[in-house]
């Protein structure tokens, strides 16, 4: 892992303005992301986990400038890319790719696989028309599909094969960085394992950096170098995979980990889960102070008033929690 970050995310904020009520008479703001800070290092897999609505996908979209950031910076190659317009963004688009959850809706049903994979190559002028066919065949081979698939249509493929095509399409631009937004969540377990292996192989082969957005903690534990836990638009904790799974500090991380089922009947029957009470509050009016304090088993008075500082609790282990901060020396 290089010391220089590939991408630096500083105070990233994303608010969506929505209109509520039957006639849209009430304006409201969805606090999707609030003051998110982290670095992504070259060649690593950084995962973001959290429950639906926690802002993990919004983070992926916003840092690729697919959503316009409300505030904050995303520094990539010395440039704050979230303030670039579409045209200035274009050279970066090639290097920054994304793979979505649902390969059924992301592939054009009227384009052959070859056309779908070839499109970004032609757009970014990465190959001549004469070279195109070979390039497509190489990409398909990279994702484990035979060259004859180039003439097929998406409906002829299984879900796993389509996800391979979506990955080939992302690879077509020779990217440095790929956001995998729940890229394996819709797949069956046995196929999921194939795609995870493929992603790891491609990372080694091309030195790719991944931002892996997922809710399956077992998968995240398997593939990540570092893991960030999000809750209601804020990062709660970020640490290396070992550190986070062995020594979680934030009470939300602890609850999340205790809910993950293990494939071991005796262990499952005897385990005591730490069940969180209640539901996630609405991002339309997030609680003041620490956003987790309404469900936190160890909440203190200060938690409902002051937003906990995002700080390093142990080397490389970031956390935002008053209780953790208090327990620290100094």
């Amino acid at each position: 892992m290089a010391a220089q970050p590939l991408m630096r995310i500083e105070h990233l904020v994303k608010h969506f303005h929505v209109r509520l009520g039957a006639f849209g008479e009430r304006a409201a703001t969805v606090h999707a992301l609030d003051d998110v800070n982290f670095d992504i290092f070259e060649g690593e897999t950084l995962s973001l986990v959290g429950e639906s609505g926690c802002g993990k996908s919004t983070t992926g979209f916003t840092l690729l400038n697919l959503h316009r950031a409300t505030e904050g910076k995303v520094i990539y190659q010395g440039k704050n890319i979230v303030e670039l317009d579409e045209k200035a963004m274009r050279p970066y688009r090639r290097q920054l790719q994304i793979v979505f959850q649902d390969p059924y809706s992301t592939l054009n049903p009227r384009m052959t696989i070859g056309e779908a994979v070839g499109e970004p190559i032609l757009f970014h002028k990465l190959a001549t028309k004469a070279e195109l066919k070979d390039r497509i065949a190489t990409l398909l081979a990279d994702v484990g599909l035979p060259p004859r698939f180039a003439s097929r249509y998406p409906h002829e493929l299984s879900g796993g094969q389509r996800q391979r095509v979506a990955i080939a399409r992302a690879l077509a631009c020779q990217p440095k960085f790929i956001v995998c937004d729940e890229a394996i969540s819709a797949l069956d377990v046995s196929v999921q394992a194939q795609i995870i292996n493929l992603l790891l192989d491609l990372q080694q082969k091309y030195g790719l950096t991944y931002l892996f957005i997922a809710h399956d903690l077992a998968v995240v534990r398997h593939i990540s170098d570092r893991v960030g836990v999000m809750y209601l638009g804020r990062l709660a904790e970020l640490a290396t995979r070992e550190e986070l799974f062995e020594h979680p500090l934030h009470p939300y991380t602890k609850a999340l980990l205790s809910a993950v089922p293990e494939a071991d009947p005796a262990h499952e029957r005897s385990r005591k889960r730490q069940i969180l009470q209640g539901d996630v509050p609405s991002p339309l009016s997030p609680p003041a102070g620490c956003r987790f304090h309404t469900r936190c088993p160890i909440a203190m008075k200060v938690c409902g008033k002051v937003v906990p500082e995002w700080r390093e609790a142990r080397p490389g282990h970031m956390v935002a929690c008053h209780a953790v901060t208090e327990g620290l020396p100094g």
Partner: protein
Amino acid sequence: MMMAKPIRPEPPAKTGERLLDVKGLTIEIETRNGPATIVDGIDLHVDKGETLGIVGESGCGKSLTMLSMMRLLPNKIKVTKGEANFAGRDLQKMSNSELRKVRGGEVGFIFQDPMTSLNPVMRIGQQLAEPLIYHRGMSKAEARKRAGELLRLVGIPGAEDRLDAYPHELSGGMRQRVMIAIGLACNPQLLIADEPTTALDVTIQAQIVDLVKDLRDKLGMSVVWITHDLALIAGLVDRINVLYAGTVVEDAPVDALFANPSHPYTQGLLASIPKLSDERSTRLSSIGGTPPEPGRRPKGCPFAPRCPLAETICHERVPALEGLSHGGAHRVACFVAQRKLEAA
């Protein structure tokens, strides 16, 4: 008879008495190229007080099997052979009016997606009261009282106040609790839960699993839990049936299945779950290929084309589900596994 309190405080006794017994059930779908088999002569059973997990990947026929028993199959999909006996009566031969008494009465259902299973323009309380009025002949007032009790039973805070809420006013986890409450409304003998937590977050998922476990022990019902997630049901079920391409390939008590998975497909499924002890970037073992499509079923064992152990016989004949251990509690449909046992 109406009961406000749990009927049986002690955990259910496993009597070995069959509550549900499905034999040779075959389901076909009509396609442009003629009928194609989706479920191929499936046998499965649930004893009284037992919790059965049905595990398989998408398209393996796990949901259709359960829907077919209640004759809830969509058009173009039909049961062509076999029987499904519930408490000694064949559900396939029942008249519609008899069957209506079973559905939602003796057998409760929880479906995957509460957003599409709940009526969006009906208040929660009315939806809960409906089966009580229909099956139990309660008055509106009685049904409303019972509906409030049911919401409390499934852990909805401020239960009585929530009776007048519409589904869209509740969160996903709360809606799924309402679905469970409806499934339980008439004290069913059997609760069929079809991927009830798949759409939910992991912390809510854990709440729902614990809730069903708790209610099962209180109410003494049998449960069939359909899922694709082996780890999820490890601590919940007594026995697991692994389905592949519309057949049961392995049937075993839960501990035996995890300790000694015997069908190559079960082994593959278990191996493809990432483990706590794995080093990062160790390759996950995966099963190559994809399940057969309906209409393109292989001649022999349906798993043979993907099976690392397949032999000539596997491509020619379909293995029967046969007992492995003494007493035959652990059964597997695999020529290779059966021969290994004989050799040992």
